[in-house]
């Protein structure tokens, strides 16, 4: 067994027994549950009103799929940041970085093992997300027949391909976030940068900047799919956006201030 395999095995043993890891990996799936329950409890009149105000596409499958895929990149950014910070922080909180670097292994092998573990975790959460999505779609078709599912085609595979693309083009983000976390060792600042990078993908992108290139690639793929305004506001209704801001803004302000207070 090579040292890389051993380190990867160690990473798995280390994290799979931690509840925090499962909480983070299941985070993207909570969005499916949220969308599913809001769709399940939505009155038919509200559904028609929202559809006519936004896309005008009355296909309930599309409405449900859009409500998942539109905030996907933003949610994945949060997910990646949380996952990377967790994987790095496990070593910081236990003072184990120092010990790891005194072991007879190359430091680059330690970082590669962590990176592969992150990739596997992303793949794992992707599989879980799709299982949740397919089951919830089937349940909706069964329980909300009043939306008129039988009249419209259900192109669930399209959204699955879209989610695959979003997941995989975001691998660059993981590398960037991992490097940022290791370099800065300030989780609040890393979160802040990742969120800012998410909100600043305005063309023209800087081709020399990996982070922006990754985001540019996502934008290009989404344009090919016919999505012009891939923005958080695209399908969120105002109330949801407010709720999200209520959670995010205090966190961002706290992170920002804590960073500068610590530095000063």
């Amino acid at each position, binding site marked *: 067994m090579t040292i890389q395999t051993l*380190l990867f095995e160690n990473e798995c043993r280390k994290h799979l*027994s931690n509840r925090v890891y499962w909480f983070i990996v299941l985070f993207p799936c909570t969005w499916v549950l949220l969308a599913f329950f809001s769709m399940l409890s939505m009155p038919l009149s509200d559904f028609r009103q929202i559809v006519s105000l936004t896309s005008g596409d009355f296909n309930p499958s599309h409405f449900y799929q859009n409500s998942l895929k539109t905030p996907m990149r933003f949610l994945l950014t949060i997910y990646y940041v949380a996952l990377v910070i967790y994987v790095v922080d496990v070593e910081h*909180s236990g003072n184990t970085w120092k010990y790891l670097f005194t072991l007879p292994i190359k430091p680059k092998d330690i970082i590669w093992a962590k990176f592969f573990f992150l990739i596997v975790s992303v793949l794992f959460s992707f599989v879980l997300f799709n299982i949740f999505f397919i089951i919830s779609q089937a349940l909706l078709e069964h329980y909300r027949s009043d939306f008129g599912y039988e009249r419209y085609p259900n192109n669930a595979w399209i959204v699955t391909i879209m989610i695959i693309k979003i997941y995989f083009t975001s691998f660059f983000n993981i590398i960037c976030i991992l490097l940022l976390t290791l370099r800065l060792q300030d989780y609040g600042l890393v979160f802040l940068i990742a969120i800012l990078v998410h909100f600043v993908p305005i063309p023209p992108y800087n081709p020399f900047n990996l982070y922006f290139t990754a985001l540019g690639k996502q934008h290009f793929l989404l344009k090919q799919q016919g999505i012009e305004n891939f923005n958080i506001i695209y399908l969120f209704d105002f109330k949801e956006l407010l709720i999200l801001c209520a959670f995010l803004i205090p966190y961002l302000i706290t992170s920002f201030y804590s960073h500068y207070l610590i530095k000063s």
Partner: protein
Amino acid sequence: MLEFKDVNYQIRQKTILKNINISIEKGNIYALLGTNGAGKTTLIKLIFGLLRPQSGKILFEGSSYVYNKIEVLRKIGSLIEHASLYGHLSAFENIEQARRIYGTEKSETYRLLEIVGLKDVMQQKTKRFSLGMKQRLGIALAMIGKPKLVVLDEPTNGLDPQGITELRNLILHLNQTEGTTFLIASHHLQEMEKIATNVIFIERGQIIHQEKLDKTLPINLEALYNQIIINL
């Protein structure tokens, strides 16, 4: 065993270590003594190859770090300040993490847990351990690769008197039964005079004194230190 030959280390023109010449002999317990900021931790980082000296040589059993760092590190164990443990894992799982890297037998984990007196609680999560228990587990972690030299950096920091006594007895036991050489960096002179066979005093990045202690005579490291400082 471990030799520093005219080692110099500096950061941005500032000299941190100057002309360090040390020779660590097998089977002894060395106390590396000095005030905070004297250069003890930098010296330890050099031992583990975490820093590279600008000039001079560091040799382990005659071979240089530059060419076979991994092989050298295989023979050196470490406990740097507080034990490096994953709180959500048990004592057993923590040692297993390191054992797999060293490729030693699984029985070695049980043996070390027995030696450090933690076999009965080996399935408990280490976040529930007292600081003394954590430090003993840290010693077990340092010993997992059957090292020839174990480097401890301020191992008694934060320990209560009982914890210090337990740790002291454990170091003496391992030194006598396994023949392990210890290099302990500390500023607790009274504690070190109870276990050290050799002392190395370091101040402002320079070795100011080193000697082999005569254990048949009463030792007062504080008096010795004060005398050296006056003569400087």
